[in-house]
């Protein structure tokens, strides 16, 4: 048995669709849809993530195999296992993604996916270089411990990531209502990338938006609220290394400067938390602006 990573085979499709979206943006005179330096950073991060992923693949695979040693069931390669694995892997992704927004150690790895002020298909490739350090793999260990084959889990994770590519676009408005009800879509994911207070920390889904509906983190895209993309405090840089590592550097600075009893909190508390209340978390921003938001439709 060997691991099958579907991602490399999808790269030509990614390139083609980015090309099509660029031409669409040009034809529709959407001058802000792309920016050459932003695109370079996004694609550079994507290229680097391939290398980082390859470097971490061995360790991730070994950990999944170790977890599989304790498997409750011997599921094997039954045909139905693929569908079940994909759905449960998507549930695992939901929680990994949610923690990535709520725990600063994990946010440091994920933030670069959100640091663009643009929302286009190149943004989808703005992937982390430090996912293994952030412990993202932990959320998939229960699948292996339940009995799913490690290679099946990694293949499903790759397919999940491929699904998420096409939802990073403004070129598609809304899909049919039944599709929007179940699946993650461009409309749902635009909300996730918005820095408007009303949209912060919403729509964590990978493939199935139902997880957000079930766990209370769903927000629909409101016609009356023009979306602004990026971070609450915009990065303001097109430096590739800064995009990849700026939050790790910020954590190190905060831990160094914080009083001893607060140092660890800068690792595990939510982004924006500070021991002296000098910064704002997403919850604080939402609370501050709640009174000025338009009513939900």
């Amino acid at each position: 048995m060997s691991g099958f990573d579907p991602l490399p085979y999808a790269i030509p499709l990614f390139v083609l669709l980015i090309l099509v979206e660029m031409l669409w943006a040009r034809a529709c005179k959407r001058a802000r849809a792309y920016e050459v330096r932003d695109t370079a950073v996004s694609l550079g991060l994507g290229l680097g993530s391939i290398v980082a992923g390859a470097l971490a693949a061995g360790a991730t695979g070994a950990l999944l195999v170790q977890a599989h040693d304790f498997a409750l069931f011997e599921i094997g390669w039954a045909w139905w296992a693929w569908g079940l694995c994909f759905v449960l892997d998507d549930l695992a992704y939901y929680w990994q993604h949610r923690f990535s927004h709520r725990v600063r150690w994990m946010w440091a790895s994920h933030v670069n996916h959100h640091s663009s002020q643009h929302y286009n298909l190149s943004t989808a490739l703005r992937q982390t270089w430090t996912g293994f350090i952030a412990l993202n793999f932990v959320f998939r260990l229960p699948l292996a411990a339940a009995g799913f084959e490690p290679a099946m889990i990694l293949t499903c994770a790759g397919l999940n990531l491929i699904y998420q590519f096409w939802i990073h676009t403004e070129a598609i408005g809304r899909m049919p209502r039944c599709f929007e009800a179940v699946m993650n879509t461009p409309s749902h994911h635009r909300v996730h990338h918005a820095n408007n207070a009303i949209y912060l920390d919403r729509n964590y889904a990978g493939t199935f938006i139902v997880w957000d509906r079930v766990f209370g983190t769903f927000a629909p895209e409101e016609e009356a609220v023009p979306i602004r993309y990026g971070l609450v405090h915009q990065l303001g840089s097109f430096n590739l290394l800064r995009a990849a590592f700026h939050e790790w550097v910020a954590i190190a600075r905060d831990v160094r400067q914080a009083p001893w009893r607060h140092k660890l909190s800068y690792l595990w508390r939510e982004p924006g938390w500070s021991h002296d209340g000098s910064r704002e978390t997403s919850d604080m921003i939402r609370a501050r602006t709640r009174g000025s938001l338009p009513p939900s439709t």
Partner: protein
Amino acid sequence: MRRRPSLRAEPVDGLLPLFGAGVAVLALIGLSAWLGFGGRQSLEGPDEALALAGELRGFTPNRLVLDRDGGAALVGDTLGRIALVAPHGAHFIAREIGPEARLDRTDGELSIAIGAMRVILALGDEAASWESLVSRAIAPAETGP
């Protein structure tokens, strides 16, 4: 006895896909430049500058001046704070002006630098009054009331 799975990562024929992806990345960056996605944009108007400044914590805008070409703006708030709305690629970002900022004025233009970001605003007759406001934001203890 349960069979122990092996997991052998199979890079897709070594470095070839990575090389191909690198070539594709360079091609897309080149295409993006060729299609004209870049260069300085203008603010859509005062509302965009006010909205960006209003995202700063506790910032309630009460005055604004746009650069002559709409390429940047200064926004003041009720507490005497000043936000610089500066271009960043095709978009804009807001930064509060504090002690780390540097300010120069020449012939109706203000030059403001915050870290690596430096913006020149053509403000005409309003340059002098905004210079005073920005100076107070940079050094409130020295020039404040």
